[in-house]
């Protein structure tokens, strides 16, 4: 995927808008996992904007983020870094080929015999 598309994809999945960031750093001031993360919440926002998604994808940060939403709650600009970190995490897991399904693909593979649990569980593999 091209960098621009990647930025769009991350933004779309996150449901947030990194461009709103005013670089105040409150997210990283609020983060309880700051010291364990190699890239910190404010960096995620900035690096996604810069297209440095590869680096983020390979970082410890996507695992060590506790998804506690402190950054999301306290963000004055509604950037909500937790959503962006999650989006990077999700895209990474999907890109690495750990699953072959995308929700948009569901209707295509629907047939009468396939039990819905199969789909649910298959889809869930990449989530967590």
């Amino acid at each position, binding site marked *: 995927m091209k960098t621009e598309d990647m930025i769009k994809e991350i933004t779309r999945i996150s449901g947030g808008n990194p461009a709103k960031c005013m670089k105040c750093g409150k997210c990283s001031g609020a983060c309880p996992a700051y010291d364990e993360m190699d890239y910190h919440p404010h960096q995620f926002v900035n690096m996604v904007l810069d297209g440095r998604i590869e680096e983020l994808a390979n970082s410890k940060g996507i695992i060590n983020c506790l998804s506690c939403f402190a950054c999301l709650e306290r963000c*004055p600009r509604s950037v909500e870094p937790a959503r962006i970190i999650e989006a990077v995490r999700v895209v990474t897991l999907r890109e690495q080929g750990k699953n072959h399904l995308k929700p948009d693909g569901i209707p295509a593979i629907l047939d009468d015999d396939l039990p819905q649990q199969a789909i649910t569980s298959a889809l869930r593999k990449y989530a967590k």
Partner: protein
Amino acid sequence: MQRIGVFVCWCGSNIAATVDVQAVADALAKEPGVVFATNYQYMCSQTGQDMIQEKIKELGLTGVVICSCSPRMHEATFRRTCEKAGLNPYMVEIANIREQVSWVHKDKAVGTEKAIILGRAAIAKVQLNTPLIAGESPVTKRALVIGGGIAGIQTALDIADAGFPVDIVETKPTIGGKMAQLDKTFPTLDCAACILTPKMVDAGQNDNIRILSYSEVEEVKGFVGNFEVKIRRKARYVKEDLCTGCGLCMEKCPQKKVPNEFNMGLDNRTAIYIPFAQAVPKVATIDANYCLMLKNGKCGLCSRNCTAGAIDYKQQDEFIEEKYGAIVVATGFNPISLDKFDEFAYSKSPDVVSSLEFERLMNAAGPTGGTLLRPSDRTHPHTIVFVQCVGSRCDASAEKGKEYCSKICCMYTAKHAMLTREKYPDTEVYVFYIDVRTPGKSFDEFYRRAVEQYNVHYIKGMVGKVVPEGGKLKVQASDLLDNRQIHIDADMVVLAAAIEPDKSARPLATKLTASMDTNDFFTEAHPKLRPVESPTAGVFLSGTCQGPKDIPETVAQAGAAASKVIGLLVKDKLIGNPCVAKPNELMCNGCSSCEKVCPYGAITYEDKPFRGPNRTTLIRRVACVNPAVCQGCGACTVACPSGAMDLQGFSNRQIMAEVDAICK
């Protein structure tokens, strides 16, 4: 039928190059009502104007059409020309054949044809023009200033100096406003009280100024030059004219546990009180929410001790009505409530304070007598963390805080940090900032002094959490330049809370029919060119009610507002724009549709007698437009179902005639 003269301008070659001006004049000469048509090189030149005047007189023209540049350019010029020749200036119409024809069309035939059509439309309109005479209204030579902070005081002083009487309406028991609560002022660090209180005294003693403290604007009627305002004088239970301000009552008052708003609730006052020593008027006020006498009729100590006999427990709110020519809004600001920012533990720890509270803690007249002490245990703080932009610059969808920059926080935080370091060199001071914004004369130098001379630690980053523990405030924050999270055990945290317009501003705006933005700041008539006037004629803006401002800017705007007011009050009468709405009373239903869409409150209703059938008299409710208030937008004309409301100068028939001329 009018006798119309048509004057086609060449504008040098600007028009003549792409429009056959002779052909235009010839074609328009054949239009009904046209008795004369000509063309000339420069109609706006003296010779051109002389020609128009000559022809008006010579041919007895009743209407003039000028085919030239945009009316935005020379309409006023040509109206004056015609007026001098004895023609009503509103009998002139301009066909814009430069901006709309010669400059945008290259083909001469096409341009000429269009110029003729535009000329016809103008002729069709002039056929229906009627002479309009601008209305006049008298001016009441008295001004009202709403709000008695530095903005209101300065405006009142300037107006009074010009010789006009001014009333200041202030909702608190004293004038002075926020500035009276400040300690020092940036960037010169002179003491706020030292520069403000002389002005308060001036205002109190000026013969032209009447201070109506502890009062509110109840109702506003009328229009520019002729406002009628009803003012509520809240019962203070003390006769203002008798009270000497000796303060004995305060000593005797047994109810001593009232949170002192002047000190931001950091200490207590008595139920009968004078807010601070330099109050103007220096008159006591009884706080009815706390007074034992007023609450359960048992006490009366103040009354017994008052040698002037000023106490009156039976006092009621009074109303006064006064006429004004101009109104100045100076309702000021407040820091926002910090309820939604409890990650800083503001509501949990008394040692987390707002900047205005810190201001009081530093002030010699404050609750600690000017010694900086922690509110919790009255000990000297050794580490202080300042947090900037609390509630400023927030995204709207965050649903807390304000979208705008509050403008003054960077400077007062630098001041606080500097003063702290100066008075208490053993105190470490950290300032967390997003950006340090210091545009202004000597402002950045001031901030740099805090950093370079006073060694204040400025950290680019933001505090994310404050946890009170063991008498300390554990501050967790980011240091973005160092790319690390830092933890500081602070003794005090000071929050630079965003500022917002005073809550009284919104209802006041409704009473004044003055407009506001989404943040409840008053809108100016033009953001650049008319910054101290509200779009509502006769209403002016002073200070932070219009937007965040520091003291010098506020004073400058106060002076500007005053000069606008003086400019209005020196006039003996106001001449209006005659192109205003006019109802045909015979057709008016009195249905209030027009009133609902009028942005100026220019429409009122009257019950008027009309002749009915069989010599009866019928009383009907009909609309009346105040021509001094109406600005001529025309919203009402479309809202009116019967077409009873029309707009002079742009009447239904005139516009229809233009449509017909163009579509023919």
